[in-house]
């Protein structure tokens, strides 16, 4: 469990982080997202104590690590493992030696180090590359070694700072699978800092959006995705673009609202409302429940209240697209005039 409260970082006149409050429960995966310049990397550096926060606390295991200094601070840093962007492996050390480095510096015995390096490499599925140098590994493989090294001192919290940035989609997926496995099997608390929304949708339980050094929105990923019109919700699950709307149709935006939406909802709605044009759709599994965003076209003479209640009974929120409707009418009028 990691509790961040009132975390503030000021460089000279610039406030980079402004009172960040954020708690990640044991075994939870939390993501912090935000545009570049929002303060993400500073937040990461304050959490793994590479930077001293100007104010606020970082509590891990009931201890405020940010308040410590000197030798105590050095020890405290071991509570939080870090997976760095592009892995940061030492070029002149083999994969196994890289994983062993924190343990050797910690002063562990040789036999213990060897045993743990073997276990860690096996966990990240890299035992067969133990004696390779970083230059002989792919980006995804390097990051696996980086993760093994982050776990070397058995931290209770693992901080992944843009750990999948710059990896191809395939490697990203496999790294995310590995991280989720760590949580499931080791109970590690994971804090993921990223600008990639796919990562958030893929593994996070909760998400917070950072902007100008403040958390502007946060919640569980499932809740955020279902929010009607928040910027984070739209970023997480963007409305698929609608092709040119056919004439004479009223456009409706649909959003899955219930935990369980029957896979047969489309035919059921059609049975009550008549012809239903599916114009664009995005459905996805997020955090164990399905979410969906769709645009459908209906006969404009349908009673709006009835349409909304039919969809509501199916667990779907429906909203008439006013702007789209006007657009269609204007388009039709324009064509008539011509």
């Amino acid at each position, binding site marked *: 469990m990691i509790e961040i409260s009132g975390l503030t970082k000021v460089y000279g006149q610039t406030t980079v982080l402004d009172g960040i409050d954020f708690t990640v429960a044991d075994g939870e995966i939390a993501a912090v997202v935000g545009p570049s310049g929002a303060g993400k990397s500073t937040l990461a550096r304050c959490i793994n104590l590479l930077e001293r926060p100007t104010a606020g606390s970082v509590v891990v295991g009931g201890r405020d690590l940010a308040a410590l200094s000197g030798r105590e601070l*050095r020890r405290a840093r071991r509570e939080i493992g870090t997976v760095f962007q592009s892995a*940061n492996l030492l070029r002149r050390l083999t994969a196994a030696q890289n994983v062993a480095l924190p343990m*050797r510096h910690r002063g562990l015995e040789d036999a213990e180090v060897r045993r743990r390096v073997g276990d860690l490499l096996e966990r990240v599925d890299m035992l067969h590359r133990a004696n390779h140098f970083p230059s002989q590994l792919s980006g995804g493989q390097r990051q696996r070694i980086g993760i093994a090294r982050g776990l070397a001192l058995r931290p209770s919290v693992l901080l992944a700072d843009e750990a999948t940035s710059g990896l191809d989609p395939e490697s990203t997926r496999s790294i995310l699978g590995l991280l989720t496995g760590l949580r499931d099997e080791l109970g590690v608390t994971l804090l993921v800092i990223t600008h990639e929304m796919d990562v958030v949708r893929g593994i996070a339980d909760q998400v917070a959006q950072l902007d100008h050094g403040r958390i502007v929105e946060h919640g569980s990923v499932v809740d955020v995705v279902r929010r009607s019109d928040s910027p984070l919700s739209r970023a997480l699950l963007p409305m698929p673009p609608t092709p040119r709307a056919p004439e004479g149709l009223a456009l409706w935006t649909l959003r899955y609202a219930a935990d369980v939406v029957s896979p047969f909802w489309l035919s059921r709605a059609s049975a009550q409302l008549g012809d239903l044009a599916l114009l664009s759709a995005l459905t996805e599994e997020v955090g164990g429940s399905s979410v969906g965003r769709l645009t459908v076209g209906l006969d404009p003479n349908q009673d709006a209240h009835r349409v909304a209640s039919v969809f509501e009974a199916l667990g779907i929120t429906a909203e008439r697209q006013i702007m789209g409707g006007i657009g269609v009418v204007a388009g039709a009028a324009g064509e008539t005039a011509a």
Partner: protein
Amino acid sequence: MIPLLGTAWHDVPGLLGPAVWETARTVLIVMSVVVLVGGPLGLLIFNTSPLGLTPNRAVHVSISWIANLGRSLPFLVLMAAIIPVTRWVFHTTIGFKAAIIPMSVAGVAFFARLTENAVREVPRDLLDVGVASGSSRWQIISGIQLREALPGLVAGVTLNVIAMIEYSAIAGAIGSGGVGYLAVNYGYRRFDNNIMLACIVVLIALVQLIQFSGDRVVRALTR
């Protein structure tokens, strides 16, 4: 004009052999001092800089200034200027011992800069790996900084050895012995072209050999 005869070729090795040994001994002794003093000095210069592990402006500026001092004088001038120190330490101002002091001063200043450059090439992010996993400052310097900078440091030593061979030849002017002394006294003052030629060949071969070996080691160390 009276034609001057050079040393007979069969006598050249007898003169050159001891001279090469003198040069090697001087350079070896000076290089030990240079690495042992210049290396730590370079680490201190870098790590007290804003990019280093323990930024400290006052220490950085003063040590940097001292290192510049050792490099700002042409070696011949430095050698002359430093004579009082040499006399105080060795009670002589000529010969092999006298050359050691000015060569060490110039070499240390040079190697401090070479070390600083070599460790600067190690990405800051790699040092952060050590900081974030609770390593001590010395563990980060020896286990990450120096280890990653090793190819650069070897290249620096190679460069420095060659510079010291050059300086040892200049030190020949104060009678330090060695190949430079031979070239000046026989080749220049006595117009002994044979000796001059032999010295040139030996110096070129020496420098080529050192550079070649240095490059090989650097390549072997680079991953």
